[in-house]
């Protein structure tokens, strides 16, 4: 493997965007959760909702902040490392990318300030509106970025002019690529699922310590309610999105399932070692004909294999194949956890089933892993193209040198490791402390500047003391 500016740029972009997606996945769901909590508190005046709101908003603030700073990177990295792509794609996806900033980022950033620090400056109704606007902002952001990405996956509504420049002929097609609605649904459900699992894990952890903590029991029930419904729904939406992949990106579908030959009644490979060098699976564990049934809905359907594409047009197979299996495997585990949780909640006494609580804790990171695996399938499966069928990744790279990109890649990895380590520490520490840790401290010894507007964290010692 030759580490040139192209490969290093790919590694850097993959690393920075995979790291980034962790935080929006959490923020989209958490902003919605906070809106529901604040709304329920205002409607019922049940203090438990307020305690939970003031607890989760602290975790939200950390996660959102990390999402912002790692997101700023991406708006520049497209130019620093993929300038040829930027110039080529701007006529089609420029507006979507700009609308994400204009319609979502400003709204999120501005009302986040009110949400975090405005508790005493605006009335409860306006504060609730700020929370809701942040939540809506996160969804608008997902809308525009998925619109841009869907066009890259399946470009429609454009022509190529004589000088090679692209020109959009139909904005309806360019923004709402036919694959867009399902992909947006898949991502938003993934974000809700990810958040529900994280909230469930944190609450279950508290219940393992104190089975009578009513706030955590309430939060766990809300989380189960969410993932018990969303996990099966996600399987359905994911399956529909997969059928779209078969229709518009057959090479990606073949890589997902490690189909090499074009034939009827493809077998489903539970596990395999696909090898591009020999254009075959070195070994496989398979169920006959099931592959055709899953991907096309019929045991005898003919599905195109990778050998139907020229070797230079085939995506990497093993990465896509295994990333897909990680995603689906975890998805099935989530469905199981949801069913189990629904049964436990219905029978009551959620706080004392330690096995179930441990399972919830274990599944806490599953959503994040699935999101990254799913995006790996989507983006690696699109290779060797950056704009499917239009522009190859190898032709899209900036005129930058190996030296520059090696240094920046190492710098990104170091800084991200640092902030991830501390961010995870602070979030896990808050989770371990539980929702009542701050709430009991309602009257701290010293008054605080407005930076501390979020309920009451215990007073930290003087720096360096």
């Amino acid at each position, binding site marked *: 493997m030759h580490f040139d500016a192209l490969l290093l740029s790919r590694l850097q972009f993959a690393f920075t965007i995979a790291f980034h997606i962790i935080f929006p996945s959490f923020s989209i769901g958490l902003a919605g959760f906070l809106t529901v909590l604040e709304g329920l508190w205002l409607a019922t005046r049940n203090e438990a909702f307020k305690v939970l709101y003031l607890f989760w908003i602290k975790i939200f603030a950390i996660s959102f*902040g990390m999402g912002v700073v790692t997101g700023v990177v991406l708006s520049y990295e497209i130019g*620093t490392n993929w300038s040829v792509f930027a110039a080529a794609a701007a006529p089609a996806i420029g507006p979507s990318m700009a609308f*994400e*900033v204009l319609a979502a980022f*400003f709204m999120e950033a501005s009302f986040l300030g009110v949400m*975090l620090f405005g508790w005493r400056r605006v009335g409860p109704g306006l504060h609730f509106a700020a929370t809701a606007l942040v939540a809506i902002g996160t969804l608008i952001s997902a809308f525009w970025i998925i619109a841009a990405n869907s066009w890259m996956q399946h470009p429609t509504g454009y022509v190529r002019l004589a000088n090679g420049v692209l020109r959009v002929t139909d904005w309806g097609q360019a923004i709402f690529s036919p694959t867009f609605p399902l992909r947006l649904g898949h991502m938003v459900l993934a974000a809700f699922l990810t958040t529900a699992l994280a909230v469930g894990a944190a609450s279950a952890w508290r219940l393992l310590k104190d089975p009578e903590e009513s706030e955590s029991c309430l939060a766990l029930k809300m989380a189960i309610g969410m993932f018990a419904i969303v996990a099966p729904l996600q399987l359905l939406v994911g399956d529909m999105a997969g059928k779209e992949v078969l229709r518009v990106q057959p090479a990606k579908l073949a890589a997902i399932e490690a189909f090499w030959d074009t034939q009827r009644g493809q077998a489903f490979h539970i596990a395999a070692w696909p090898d591009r060098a020999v254009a075959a699976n070195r070994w496989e564990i398979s169920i006959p004909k099931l592959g055709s049934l899953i991907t096309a809905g019929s045991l005898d359907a003919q599905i195109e294999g990778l050998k139907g594409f020229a070797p230079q047009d085939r995506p990497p197979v093993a990465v896509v194949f295994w990333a897909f299996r990680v995603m689906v495997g975890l998805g099935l585990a989530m469905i199981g956890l949801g069913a189990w949780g629904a049964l436990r909640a219905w029978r009551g006494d959620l706080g004392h089933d330690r096995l179930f609580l441990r399972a919830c804790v274990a599944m806490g990171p599953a959503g994040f892993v699935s999101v990254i695996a799913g995006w790996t399938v989507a983006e690696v499966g699109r290779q060797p193209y950056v704009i499917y069928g239009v522009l190859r990744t190898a032709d899209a790279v900036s005129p930058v040198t190996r030296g520059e990109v090696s240094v920046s890649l190492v710098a990104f990895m170091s800084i991200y490791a640092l902030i991830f380590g501390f*961010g995870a520490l602070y979030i896990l520490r808050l989770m371990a402390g539980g929702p009542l840790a701050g709430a009991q401290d309602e009257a701290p010894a010293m008054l605080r500047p407005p*930076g501390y507007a979020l*309920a009451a964290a215990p007073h*930290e010692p003087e720096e360096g003391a």
Partner: protein
Amino acid sequence: MSLDLPLIWAGLIAIAVLLYVMLDGFDLGIGILFPFAGSSAERDTMMASVAPVWDGNETWLVLGGGGLFAAFPFAYAALMPALYIPIILMLLALILRGVAFEFRLHGRARSKPLWTAAFTAGSLTATFAQGLVLGGFIQGVTLRGLSFAGGRFDWLTPYSLLVAVGLVAGYALTGACWLVWRTEDALQGRARRWAWIALACVAGLLAAVSLATLYVHAQVAERWGWNGRGFDLAKLARLSPIPLLGGAGLAAVAFGLRARSQGWPFAGAIAVFLSGYLGLAAGFVPDVVPYGMTFRQAANADNALALLLVGGGVLLPAIVGYSLWVYWIFRGKVSADAGYH
């Protein structure tokens, strides 16, 4: 009637960059001044004075990048590789100082000083890197056709280093003036001293950068009527409102500080920035990549610009409206117990 879409978007992007420099300028300045605070409590207050608004301020930078990509993709595609190292440096520094807002609240005895240091180092480095970007931009970018064709260290010159130092002083000045406006008692007194020092540095560096800029490209000298020995007064007179605005801004800061005014120093610092911005722009307009690509050459397809304008026409006024509202909500002095819930 047909609108001149590239011209409208050139104006809008220029305003976005100007707003970024003015807004994120003072909160980056707070970070630069962080080590000089008298106590950890003072640092808390300094950070609290910008905590609700910094994220909105930084979003103008995202619009600068995203907007340039959308409206002038060829400029974006040429500038970003040309300025690769300072841009990446800026991004990394902004990450460190951005997370410090939250991390500093959660750090305990050992890690809180780490995030205090990260906030300072990140703010200072991000500002310096922005200065290198600005300097590298003003001195011109080597192009072949519409693509970058220069070397990887083209941006690193005595001129860009001078601009970077000047920008650090400028952000420190607006940061200090912001604190004069928004804090009281001991911290306000300290901020006044910082503002005096920063003012002296800015006055000197502004003059130095102004003179040096006359030598970076013949076009700049020509615009300002400088022939190497003296000024063509007719040309200079036309642009004279720009330096006069800068002088007035410096004077407003100085008199405001002497008169112990709350708001005038900040207003003066903003005027200085506006003057510096216009003064530099006068040398390179209508280029978006000096001195080889005009905004018309760099523009995106007209139908993309038209769609952008429809969206921007609705969204930008709303953004300005609710941003002002948020500043209004958090108006007044940052006192010890203000937003405490």
